[in-house]
């Protein structure tokens, strides 16, 4: 090979084009812009996190972990009585979170079950049954529904829903966990429906063809191939819906009755953790035990949703790795 000649070619070669100064500057500016954006978001999250835990853990100095569960106090005849009550403004304040946890789950859990049945059903309908034109109309409508301010939904449930259920079910309290969970469902159903539709839609058409080609019916194809293949996406949508139900504030504040009852009866008034923070934070004096205890509730809420997301993440990863069902 004539080495010299070969390397002389470089002078006029079209490969010799150098990258422009402007281009390089622009690229680095773009990089910096996104880096700053990303870090800012992270910094804010960390700040919120730090503030919440700093304030919340002060509650433990003032109140003590056990007091967040129950209080032992003498009753009229002098016997020690163990009470699970949330009554922070009393002469003898009681800080048990148990009724609030129960209130939260008694509203969030039924809401999630209702929303799973209807939401997954709607997702299946959208993805597998509805004709594409109708779906294009219906899906945005459902998503629009998720955007209705929850205070509006809460208001409608409070005025119309509560009376309706009061007339047909005659619950002990007009505002109760059941009414709140129906209200919550209006928020959760669109979330689950939309995410389920996404999950089912992402399953390649090949699998449907394979199933039909083997003589499966539509329902067999959905239940035995499509749903299992989308299992991780569907379960993630349910867990997300559940997380949202636990964190939702306005609807439960307006519809659940807000009496911190220690009960498993869905037709009694309950008080959720979120409603407690929302209702009491405005009136509490900063730095009081009550103030710190509300932050502690915040920590508990945060921890529950954190673990819900973690579990969702683990399920999804496990499914993805095994990719089998």
């Amino acid at each position: 090979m004539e080495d010299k000649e070969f390397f002389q070619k470089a002078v006029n070669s079209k490969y010799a084009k150098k990258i422009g100064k402007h281009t390089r500057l622009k690229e680095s500016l773009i990089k910096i812009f996104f880096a700053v954006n990303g870090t800012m978001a992270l910094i804010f999250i960390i700040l919120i996190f730090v503030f919440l835990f700093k304030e919340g853990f002060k509650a433990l100095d003032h109140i003590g972990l056990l007091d967040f569960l129950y209080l032992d106090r003498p009753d009229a005849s002098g016997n020690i009585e163990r009470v699970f009550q949330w009554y922070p403004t009393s002469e003898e304040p009681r800080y048990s979170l148990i009724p609030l946890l129960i209130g939260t789950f008694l509203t969030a859990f039924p809401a999630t079950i209702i929303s799973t049945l209807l939401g997954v059903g709607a997702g299946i309908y959208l993805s597998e049954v509805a004709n594409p034109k109708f779906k294009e109309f219906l899906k945005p409508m459902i998503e629009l529904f998720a955007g209705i301010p929850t205070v509006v939904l809460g208001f409608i449930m409070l005025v119309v829903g509560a009376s309706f259920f009061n007339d047909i079910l005659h619950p002990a309290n007009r505002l109760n966990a059941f009414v709140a969970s129906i209200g919550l469902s209006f928020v959760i159903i669109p979330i689950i429906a939309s995410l389920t539709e996404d999950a089912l839609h992402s399953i390649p058409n090949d699998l449907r063809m394979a199933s039909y080609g083997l003589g499966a019916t539509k329902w067999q194809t959905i239940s035995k191939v499509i749903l299992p293949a989308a299992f991780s996406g569907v379960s993630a949508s349910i867990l997300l819906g559940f997380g949202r139900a636990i964190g939702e504030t306005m609807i439960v504040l307006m519809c659940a009755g807000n009496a911190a009852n220690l009960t498993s009866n869905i037709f009694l008034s309950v008080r959720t953790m979120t409603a407690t923070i929302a209702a009491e934070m405005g009136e509490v004096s900063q730095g009081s035990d009550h103030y710190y205890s509300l932050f502690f509730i915040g920590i508990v809420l945060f921890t529950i949703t954190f673990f819900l997301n973690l579990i969702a993440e683990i399920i999804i990863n496990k499914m993805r790795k095994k990719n089998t069902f």
Partner: protein
Amino acid sequence: MKETKIVVKDLNLFYGDKQALKKITMDIPDKRVTAFIGPSGCGKSTFLRVINRMNDLIDHVKIDGEVYIDGVNIYDRSLDIVNLRKNVGMVFQKSNLFPKTVYENIVYGPRINGIKDKKVLDEIVERTLNQAAIWEEVKDRLNDNALSLSGGQQQRLCIARALAVEPEIILMDEPASALDPISTAKIEELIHDLKKQYTIVIVTHNMQQAARVSDQTAFFYLGELIEFDRTTTIFTNPSKKQTEDYVTGRFG
């Protein structure tokens, strides 16, 4: 000449306004391999999907004409399409195994047909994997994810899965187009064995493959059936100029 299995009469198919198949008339013989050849977009896959009514799943498809299998008009309004598809198996160009285990893939068809007995299912798995010449390779991996097999193994597993519902007719749409020569040879050998029991229709772009595996060959062009004859005739002495140009590679 063998008995006729499938009779197609004046078949027209439209995707919306666009006609994809034009007045197709042909008789496909029983227990033989029939190959469909022709340039891309000429309607081979579409025609294959006519035979198990897979086109019903595509929007805006209009079909007129008649298709008979064993004398039964499969486009009769009251015909049970699910039952039709059980008897007319299909193997697709791209392997489309379920993201399940090897075992679960095979027993999917039998299970939806109501077979629950584990012993019967085990037998079906061993028999069909043997038929598809893949038993030795996967017998220790029945509980592995089917998608962890090689491309060639996956395609043979697709064939085994199709066999598990005991069809009489097997439609194959370019079953070896994505495979290496060794896997392709295995599939061709398999097709050769299967034709003792099954009526096979195969679409292929590979002229040598059509020549090797098929008894009859149909040449399609722009939605029309140009020529349909014994494979040796199509490749050595075709009666139409277009056919000759295509099989000799002088096309277009």
